[in-house]
């Protein structure tokens, strides 16, 4: 079973839910797919045993073969190649903008002279390790690097389907989030009962419907705002799996990088019940 934890709005408690859920399960693997700002390691404190560089392929021009015909510029859908023709064809230059490159391979595949080969460009790292029996994997995007989806894909290549897998997703509803939650069996949407929380929850719900991942809501700090999220969930038949009050004790634990598990038994019980509830809902969505 692969469970993703996402949110639309940031700072609603994704990492808290993901980490405490992982601590309540046995035989579990944890993947932090928020490669721009990974935080789960601050709570799980894994011992990292393996660091793997993550690359994307980018084009390199063999100048002696290139006659600046301009095909590569024409076929690149991402404007990452500019061909500046010279007076005679061989005088020109080909400029490559690696930060725009998606690594699709169109230029090298379609170059009529075979003048383009691909080289690896590092965009970040994948780190693997262990934390109290939890197998841990996360990605760290290099500073200044724009594209996180290829790194997220490389983190997800380490999924061990023999384990219960928890995926901590980045905030928002666009490509990095979709890349993280795609292919998971269930998505927990963590939100808070404010107009911001509701607005971004609705966007996240639409996104999950589009990609076809079943989902439920976890309402964090349920007593700080109004009942807008409850009403929305009821009207749309979306299950609310857990409600956590605003608790200065939880806020304080979080600020220090400590889990909720072990703080109050009522929360321990709630987290223990969560996988079972999710299982039931997955079966229901399949039937």
């Amino acid at each position, binding site marked *: 079973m692969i469970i993703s934890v996402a*949110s*639309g*709005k*940031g*700072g*609603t408690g994704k*990492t808290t839910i993901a980490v405490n859920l992982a601590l309540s399960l046995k035989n579990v693997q944890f993947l932090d797919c928020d490669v*721009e*700002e990974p*935080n789960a390691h*601050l709570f799980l404190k894994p011992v990292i045993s393996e660091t793997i560089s993550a690359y994307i392929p980018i084009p390199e021009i063999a100048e002696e073969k290139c006659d600046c015909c301009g095909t590569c510029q024409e*076929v690149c*859908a*991402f404007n990452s190649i500019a061909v500046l023709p010279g007076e005679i064809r061989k005088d020109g230059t080909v400029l490559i903008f690696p930060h725009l490159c*998606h*690594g*699709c*391979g*169109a230029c090298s*595949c*379609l170059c009529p002279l075979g003048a383009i080969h691909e080289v690896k460009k590092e965009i970040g790292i994948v780190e693997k390790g262990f934390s109290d029996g939890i197998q841990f994997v996360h990605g760290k*995007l290099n*500073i*200044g*690097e*724009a*594209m*996180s989806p290829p790194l997220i894909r490389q983190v997800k290549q380490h999924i061990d389907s023999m384990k219960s897998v928890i995926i901590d997703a*980045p*905030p*928002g*509803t*666009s*490509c*990095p*989030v*979709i890349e993280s939650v*795609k292919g998971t069996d269930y998505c927990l949407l963590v939100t*808070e*009962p*404010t*107009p*911001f929380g509701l*607005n*971004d929850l609705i*966007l996240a719900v*639409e*996104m999950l419907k*589009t*990609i076809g991942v079943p989902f439920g809501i976890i309402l964090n*700090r349920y007593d*700080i*705002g*109004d009942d807008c999220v409850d009403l929305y969930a009821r009207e749309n038949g979306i299950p609310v799996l857990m409600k956590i009050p605003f608790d200065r004790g939880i*806020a*304080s634990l*979080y*600020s*220090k*990088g400590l889990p909720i598990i072990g703080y109050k038994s009522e929360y321990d019980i709630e987290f223990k019940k969560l996988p079972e509830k999710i299982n039931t809902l997955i079966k229901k969505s399949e039937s």
Partner: protein
Amino acid sequence: MVTKQMVIISGKGGTGKTVLTASLASLARDKVMVDCDVDAADLHLLLHPSVKERFEFRSGRTARLDKEKCCECGECIDICRFDAIGKDFVIDPVSCEGCGLCSRICRYGAIAMEENLSGEWFVSDTRYGPFVHARLGIAEDNSGKLVSVVRQAAKDIVKKEQKSYILIDGPPGIGCPVIAAITDTDLAVIVTEPTISGIHDMLRVIDMAGHFQIPTRVVINKYDLNPENSEKIMEICASKKIEILGKIPFSAKVPRSLVKAVPYVEFTQDDVTEEMISIWNKMESIIQEKKSSDY
């Protein structure tokens, strides 16, 4: 006419970017506001825009396969780096990045590339001034490009209406939409919180802003929730010579101001309000001192 651009970012989500931006919008005179968090935009909920103009955001293409022409040779499946074409020759539009390679190599001409309608953006009036905002289409990509589009629209308004400032509410993270939101701004204000995640993410976003040579300041939100960590943030910023513009205390009234849908400085008058006013005054004097950048 010299217009200064200020952007509010955070690295970590949910530290209070939009709450602060809305209050700055209420305090600052003579500005245009932009919401660059295009995939989870919230600022409009506090600014109550009345939309004047609406534009389609067209960006990128998606492959579409014509089953009649397709001979199921499988070359497209092999060549696609994004696993967007299934064994059943059905294209997954979410995985397709629109590179067009499949369409170019298909010898039966069975794959066409179709332009995406990836969202829409708006120019609105608010009681605080003009406001440019957007909505990225569901499960669409290219958020960085949409950020650049709304920022350009704000610059165009500024040219016509001679405003002094552009105030930008940024997205979380350090990737493509954030880079698009901070490029060529005059001041980036990082809102952080005294948690270990807040500190960790602040460090990465400081490095990112430094990488693009954007002048940076820090605001600590809810600083009294963990004074020890706030102390750490101040030490880190001192060592990096980054000024702390303010320390906003925790207030249980913030969610209530959101429910009322008004900027905090208009919702109540307390120590949070005072700190926000002081932050704006400091931002204004920093930006006025900075050497002009004209466009």
